[in-house]
């Protein structure tokens, strides 16, 4: 069904085109807007009332006029034609190929809004993704099917971190999340027999990378580094530039997630989606909302921002059972920059409500030249207990992580103490903690190249060996004997 309306335009305002309602259309239906310059622009119906229809134009509205504008209604929601050929390709924010190659052969066309998963059909995310970053793998593990945001700030190296995770992330042993459902033994009960076998072929792990409202140089950086690192072959890259229209920005993550869902649930892949930067997305949401004249809520962001973000973040997960789509998983790592480093700002706040934990980057660590500047104390991966331990990584991994956390928190206290009374005024134990804190940041948090989990764990045990045994209250005697006393 294709209906064309001509001469009904009454007002144009930024990305919004207001038309008299001369026909019955559905909310969020896709449209094409033809200007007198004969350029076709993609758009969608954003609001309808008795008299008017509001069209969100997803490309530049410069040069559009009221008289000469023709709008074609497609009679269905925006959709995305997908096929296995999307891997290794570069798209713009609305799913058009921009790498100069031929269009992608579509095996399936899906509406970009996706469909909510029935909560009962979801499987609990399990099993581990190795990112190559010690502070993540060891202490805030990413689990297949998890949604984990990275809270960063302006000027922090989150772009580099995103690219490095995309290049180095890999699966370890295990076959899929569902095979684990029948395993009821508590974590750590199965004896550990060497490194787990990698039974998941590497080609089953793919990346969907979406740059949302990123400047041109960052976009080029993403494209080049993925290409040079060889990761582009297993990546579908979506780039929405800062200069693209803000309405288009609202759709970029939806196109990217539709592609990811296709790869995960139609092609049985394990998909890691990296969305950067969600702050640009929320800013676009605020901009479009206020141009529609909606009542603003906190800091001018629309009241429905929570629900809107949920429609994106909830698209992570995996399905239970043996049916179609139950083999793949969709993991989300979304990056956002906290305005003025304020973690209570509506964007990080509402994101934290929906996601399963957060990774926080610290300006202080960055200033001291520590890369990646992950501040482990406020960071948390809520699903870590489901993806670590004997079945997935190592039986002593959770205890090691817990002890590192306790010791580093104590080191942070000792630092506050030392800043007042001086290092000389500290008790001997506190001085050892102080040294531990510095060593932790210099050797474990800081890294030049990707590390395997085994390397990260070895570093962790070595750091703990610097503390008196009486302080290691979160490790059992057996763990201390097996990992720490052998080092001495």
């Amino acid at each position, binding site marked *: 069904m294709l209906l064309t309306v001509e001469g009904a335009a009454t007002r144009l305002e930024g990305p919004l085109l207001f038309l008299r309602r001369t026909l019955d259309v559905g909310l969020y239906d896709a449209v094409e807007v033809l200007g007198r310059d004969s350029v076709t622009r993609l758009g969608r119906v954003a609001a309808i009332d008795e008299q008017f229809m509001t069209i969100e134009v997803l490309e530049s509205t410069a040069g559009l006029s009221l008289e000469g504008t023709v709008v074609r209604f497609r009679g269905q929601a925006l959709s995305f034609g997908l096929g296995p050929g999307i891997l290794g390709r570069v798209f713009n924010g609305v799913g058009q190929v921009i790498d100069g190659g031929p269009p992608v052969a579509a095996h399936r066309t899906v509406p970009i809004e996706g469909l909510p998963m029935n909560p009962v059909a979801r*499987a609990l995310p399990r099993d581990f993704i190795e990112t190559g970053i010690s502070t993540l793998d060891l202490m805030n593990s990413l689990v297949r099917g998890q949604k984990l945001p990275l809270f960063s700030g302006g000027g922090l190296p989150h772009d580099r971190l995103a690219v490095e995770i995309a290049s180095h992330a890999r699966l370890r042993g295990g076959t899929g999340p569902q095979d684990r459902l029948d395993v009821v033994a508590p974590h750590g009960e199965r004896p550990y027999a060497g490194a787990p076998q990698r039974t998941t072929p590497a080609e089953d792990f793919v990346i969907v990378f979406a740059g949302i409202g990123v400047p041109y140089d960052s976009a080029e950086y993403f494209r080049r580094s993925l290409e040079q690192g060889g990761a582009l072959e297993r990546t579908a890259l979506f780039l929405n530039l800062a200069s693209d229209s803000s309405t288009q920005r609202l759709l970029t993550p939806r196109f990217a997630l539709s592609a990811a869902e296709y790869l995960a649930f139609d092609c049985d892949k394990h998909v890691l989606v990296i969305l950067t930067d969600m702050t640009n997305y929320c800013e676009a949401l605020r901009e479009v909302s206020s141009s529609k004249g909606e009542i603003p*809520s906190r800091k001018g962001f629309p009241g*429905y921002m929570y629900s809107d973000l949920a429609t994106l973040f909830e698209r992570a997960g995996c399905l239970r059972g043996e049916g179609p789509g139950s083999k793949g998983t969709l993991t989300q790592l979304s990056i956002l920059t906290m305005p003025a480093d304020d973690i209570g700002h509506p964007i990080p*706040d509402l994101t934290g409500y929906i996601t399963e934990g957060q990774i926080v980057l610290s300006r202080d660590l960055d200033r001291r030249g520590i890369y990646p500047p992950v501040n482990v104390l406020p960071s948390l991966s809520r699903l870590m*207990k489901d993806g670590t331990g004997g079945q997935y990584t190592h039986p002593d991994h959770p205890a090691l992580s817990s002890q590192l956390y306790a010791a580093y928190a104590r080191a942070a206290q000792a630092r506050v103490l030392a800043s*007042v009374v001086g290092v000389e005024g500290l008790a001997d134990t506190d001085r050892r903690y102080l040294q531990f804190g510095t060593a932790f940041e210099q050797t474990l948090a800081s890294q030049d190249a990707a590390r395997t989990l085994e390397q990260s764990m070895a570093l962790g045990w070595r750091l703990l060996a610097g503390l008196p*045994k009486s302080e290691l209250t979160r490790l059992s005697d057996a763990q201390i004997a097996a990992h720490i006393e052998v080092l001495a």
Partner: protein
Amino acid sequence: MAGVLDEFPGLTDPRSGRPLMERTVIIANTSNMPVAAREASIYCAITVAEYFRDQGLHVALMADSTSRWAEALREVSGRFGELPGEGGYPAYLSSRLADFYERAALVDTLGGDTGSVTVMGAISPPSGDFSEPVTSHTKRYVKAFWALDVKRAQARFYPAVHPLQSYAEDARAFAPWWAAQGNGQWLALRRRFLTLLDEQAQLERMARIIGKDALPARQQLTLLCAELVNEAFLRQSAFSPIDRVCSPQRQAAMMRLLGRFIDLAEAALAAGVEPDRMAGIGCLRELQRMGEEIADDQLPRLAELEARLERDFAQLVPAAAGTPTPESRDAAHG
């Protein structure tokens, strides 16, 4: 949500041995479902609870989280074009919260039974700020409050319930119940632990200025005992199948054991033993890890630990009367 739906069907009821799901109702509304349904979900849940209450059953209702429910209220109110109040929430937020929490009650049913609904609402305030509207209004209507502490959470101190910020107005009423579980001194011990923790909070501020070593011996001992209460009693390991839950009997035994430690330590201090040497006693590490090492059905091991504790202190006290021998100093610092 997937976690709850995945775990619950696998759980067995420890009392009947039947699947726990048989006496559970889950109202699931994930955040990508329609917002109006989110607003309705807690009313739906508490209505279900009242249905069972009226049959003379005791119902526990967990609402996670009422902040997201309030978020939905705010969104719907915005769509209606209502004037926003504090924090963008509608002005009727507090009366809606009161309506909800007031539905928790103990009732005599028409059938002559007693039924009850107990409500546990989780709140997730932005950046841990307890002065925000949902938290502050909820606190007006509830009698017990468990405050999760950021510092404890960051040190992976589980459960991160802050002992001083949390409160239970009905605590006194539980003393007879605890006495029935074998802990007649519960109220006294609880007060003692809380006093210790409160003193610790103040002393740490002081220690920050003058250094821990400069504190008098009595205050150093307070810090030692408070730290032990935290590590040995308040902290549990979620990873450990033994420590994940603790039976009332074990809690009572552990509480008494720690109370005994405090008594012995104070007596030793009076006899002139330095707190540093008490921190070096052999069984301290076992005390700190008793929650993880000694299971619910191994209570005699706690008694053994107590005997060792008595012996360790007995060795300390006479040694303190004279000059410490080299052996006892090694024992204290090794």
